[in-house]
């Protein structure tokens, strides 16, 4: 969540800019700046600024498309649509790779090196590990363990990417499951506590009966 704290100000800055800029070219520049910023990994706030819709249908429409790609897409999406999208600077390429790692981490906790190298268009393990260490872990967007022996990256924490609207239901469902599980657990614990109380009452009564019998036996013996 530190990453969210870090980028909150940056998001705020670009949202304010996007709301006031008038010329389409300036908005296109803003998108290029936002998608190059080294500490920004969240784009849905900027995307939801109404002012940006004026780029639709103009010569800068591809910039808006690019912003959508950075919010929800990955390297492979750029490759398959590169003819309709602006060329990327080195910063943008790096960022898109970082966002791709986040997206891969969404589905799995263990990311095989081969899959990462293919998705990120990286030719060797050394380059891949350097990228994961310098541009992902040091940037604070992921935490995890590089397992050279099993050639995979075990993800312990990954920053959240922008959510596509269709993902919301899945998230709500998972939260409801978790809530249900927690409620069931609480009820089970309460039932167990009641059971334990009942058993201890039972034991006390039983112990009392035994003591009375012993007492009676002593009396009768005397």
């Amino acid at each position, binding site marked *: 969540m530190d990453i969210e704290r870090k980028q909150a100000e940056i998001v705020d800055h670009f949202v304010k800019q996007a709301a006031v800029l008038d010329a389409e070219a300036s908005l296109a520049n803003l998108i290029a700046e936002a998608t190059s910023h080294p500490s920004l990994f969240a784009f849905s706030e900027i995307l939801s600024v109404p002012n940006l819709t004026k780029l639709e249908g103009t010569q800068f429409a591809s910039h808006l498309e690019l912003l959508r790609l950075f919010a929800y897409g990955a390297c492979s999406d750029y490759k398959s649509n590169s003819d309709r999208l602006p060329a990327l600077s080195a910063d943008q390429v790096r960022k898109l790779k970082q966002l791709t790692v986040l997206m891969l981490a969404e589905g799995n906790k263990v990311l095989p090196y081969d899959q990462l190298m293919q998705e990120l268009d990286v030719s060797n393990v050394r380059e891949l590990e350097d990228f994961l260490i310098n541009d992902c872990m040091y940037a604070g967007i992921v935490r995890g363990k590089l397992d050279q022996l099993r050639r995979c990256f075990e993800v312990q924490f990954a920053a959240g990417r922008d959510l596509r609207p269709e993902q919301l239901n*899945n998230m709500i469902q*998972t939260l409801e*499951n*978790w809530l249900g*599980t*927690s409620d069931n*657990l609480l009820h089970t*614990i309460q039932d167990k506590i009641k059971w334990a109380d009942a058993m201890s009452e039972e034991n006390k009564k039983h112990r009392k009966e035994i003591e009375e019998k012993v007492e009676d036996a002593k009396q009768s013996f005397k």
Partner: protein
Amino acid sequence: SSDGIYYYDEAAQTKFQHEKPWAHDPNYFRRVRISALALLKMVVHARSGGTIEVMGLMQGKTDGDTIVVMDAFALPVEGTETRVNAQADAYEYMVDYSQANKQAGRLENVVGWYHSHPGYGCWLSGIDVSTQMLNQKYQEPFLAVVIDPTRTVSAGKVEIGAFRTYPEGYKPPDEPVSEYQTIPLNKIEDFGVHCKQYYSLDITYFKSSLDSHLLDLLWNKYWVNTLSSSPLLGNRDYVAGQISDLAEKLEQAENQMAHTRFGSFLAPSSRKKEQEESQLAKITRDSAKITVEQVHGLMSQVIKDFLFNSVRQ
């Protein structure tokens, strides 16, 4: 204002030393306030000793009937499973440390000593009582703190006690109830329950604004560690030690049983029987206690497994 407690008023402390209010009332001191820093240092030091007893000194001041512990430092003494004594080199160390402190501008005096009882609870054994009595004779105001690092892990909070002894021969008005403690076999000869010769003080903690800031930064790490730690794993050697101690006690009780059975042809002594029973009763109570702690550890593991591993995307 929360940092006011860190100010040391030398004149007031000197005046208090002269008045010696504790000399007229054996129960004068009733409260202890321990700083977060001192607590952390004592617990970490006690944990580092594992099953070996460790000891150290506490620095601080007094505030009415409260002893305020500001800081603590370890003493370079050799401990054993059941005993730690400050030897000559420790005394030399104490003197050097106190002098160096004054030179460094730290005005707090030594106000007590702490040591650990790994795995058998916080209270004063026979030797502890005599050590503390000596300290209270020559170094007042002086406090004894005992920490059980092993139970600290399993209880999820710091197992700590602060005590002061009564003067020689003093009989406290109300007999304090001696809480049942599992005493390891290799500690029995020394322990004996001396609860009539000392009393425990209420402990509260305090922290500075800087401590609060630092602890807040560690909050996430603390939670992750708390949720991911398990007494089943962290306390393995402690539990193994307890079970072997229990086995020894069982053997001992069995041997005594055998003698008694043999001896009972000679002089049936119901007292001996009671004594064995109480011994066996203690053993069964200890074994139940060990098991309950294990079952608690397992319960928390099952609950965590259910909460965090059963929900799927």
